[in-house]
């Protein structure tokens, strides 16, 4: 193969193995905690799920549990703060959820989103759809949660993630 022919094929191949350099972290854990529970003190209370607990959460939510360790904080005066990640189109999406003392959603924050389309999931209006949801809520795309054009996978996975965390609260956190 001549040099020019090699360059012709090498260009896209070299780009193929080049790392992605545009990952954006919107919020740190500390910033997410202050955004959801301003003025409150939070105590780390990590959860290690036993296999029967994973199974119970999966049965209750209909969503598979990918990690048996969950980053959880207990909030002074009642409530929980959880950092979770779900599968995105290319990479994991990291988000935080605040739960009220009664287990309903106080607020969610997207901490890390690396997909091109669907950046609107960070918008207040889209995230506000989750406020007040409980483990009894349908949490279904196009039913009680609106989809975002070009980001159906991300929207569905965050919706599923919230449903799974509400089941985590019901089965594990509420009883701790």
């Amino acid at each position, binding site marked *: 193969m*001549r040099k*020019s*022919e090699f*360059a*012709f*094929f090498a*260009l*896209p*191949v070299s*780009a*193929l*193995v080049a790392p*992605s350099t*545009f*990952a954006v972290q919107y919020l740190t854990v500390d910033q997410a905690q202050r955004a959801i529970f301003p003025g409150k003190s939070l105590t780390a209370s990590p959860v290690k799920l036993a296999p029967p607990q994973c199974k119970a959460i999966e049965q209750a939510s209909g969503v*598979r549990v*990918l990690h048996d360790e969950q980053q959880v904080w207990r909030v002074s005066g009642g409530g929980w703060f959880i950092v979770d990640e*779900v*599968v995105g*189109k*290319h*990479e*994991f999406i990291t988000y935080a959820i605040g739960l009220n003392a009664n287990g309903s959603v106080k607020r969610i924050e997207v901490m890390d989103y*690396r*997909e*091109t*389309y669907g950046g609107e999931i960070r918008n207040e209006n889209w995230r506000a759809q989750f406020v007040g949801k409980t483990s009894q809520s349908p949490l279904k*795309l*196009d039913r009680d949660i609106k*989809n975002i*054009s*070009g980001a*159906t*996978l991300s929207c*569905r*996975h965050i919706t599923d993630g919230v449903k799974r965390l509400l089941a985590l609260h019901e089965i594990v956190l509420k009883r701790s």
Partner: protein
Amino acid sequence: MLCMAGMKLVSAFAAFLFCVSGADAHESIFAWTYTTDLTPKGHGEFEQWITPRWEKEHGSYGVIDFREEFEYGVTDDFQIALYLNHRYVYAKDDIPVANPTHPKKLLPGVFETGGEDVHAGHDPTKPFDSYHFESVSFESIYRLLSPYKAPIGLALYFEPSIGDQETELEWKILVQKNWLEDRLVWALNINYELEFEKETGDWERDGAFEWFTGISYRFISNWSAGLEFRNHHEFADAAVHEHSAYFVGPTIHYGGERWWASIGFLHQLPIGEAFSQDNKEFAAHDGYIFGDEHEKYYVRLKVGFNF
């Protein structure tokens, strides 16, 4: 060998796109098989395809197909696209020669330059070497079901192509099923193609039925790997079943924020079947099907940029 001016032009254009593109969305995780993922409403995509294919029964034969594709999402479920198809062809002594006294029989051990990609009227005793523009294609895909909302994804595809030597109409049914949080993707395409080809001044009609299937798993962030399979059936005059050829090979895909790329390899399996007398005599060889339609090896690189 390769048309240097064309190569430099495409290389420069690819380099430009690598520098300036700033988004990523609809992407092909397979090299051959289509999924039901579409470009979202109001967004566009540019794709560059490069497909080298080579090796017949005898002699030298190599083609590099180039395709530039511009896609646009009319709605979230309806996408249109325009392709430019052009290719480089090199052929020498690649097809068997018919016996002049028995035209339905070949002359054993005698070959000449020819085949579908060699221009009509070329002297078959000389090698053929050409880079030329092939056709323009218009594609439309309408998605009936999204795999992210329904149990399966389902879409309908239609593509007419117009060229000076060949005009084609192609229909596809696209099916997709996802598992494991959409990291494991299976896709099936059922295709029918009608070709109107200019042969020594007259237009000849051929038909092809083929199906592609692929399965791919996103094994780490951004990277998927899988396997693709193709089965092609050719019909002379869109009616007489001539042959069935089989292909299989791996595919790897990278999807980032700004662009994506897929590269796949297909190897023809030596289990092909020739049905017509003409194909039994002239196209089948050691279980492979060559003739006008097939080569032994295929590689396809697709790179996409969204805007």
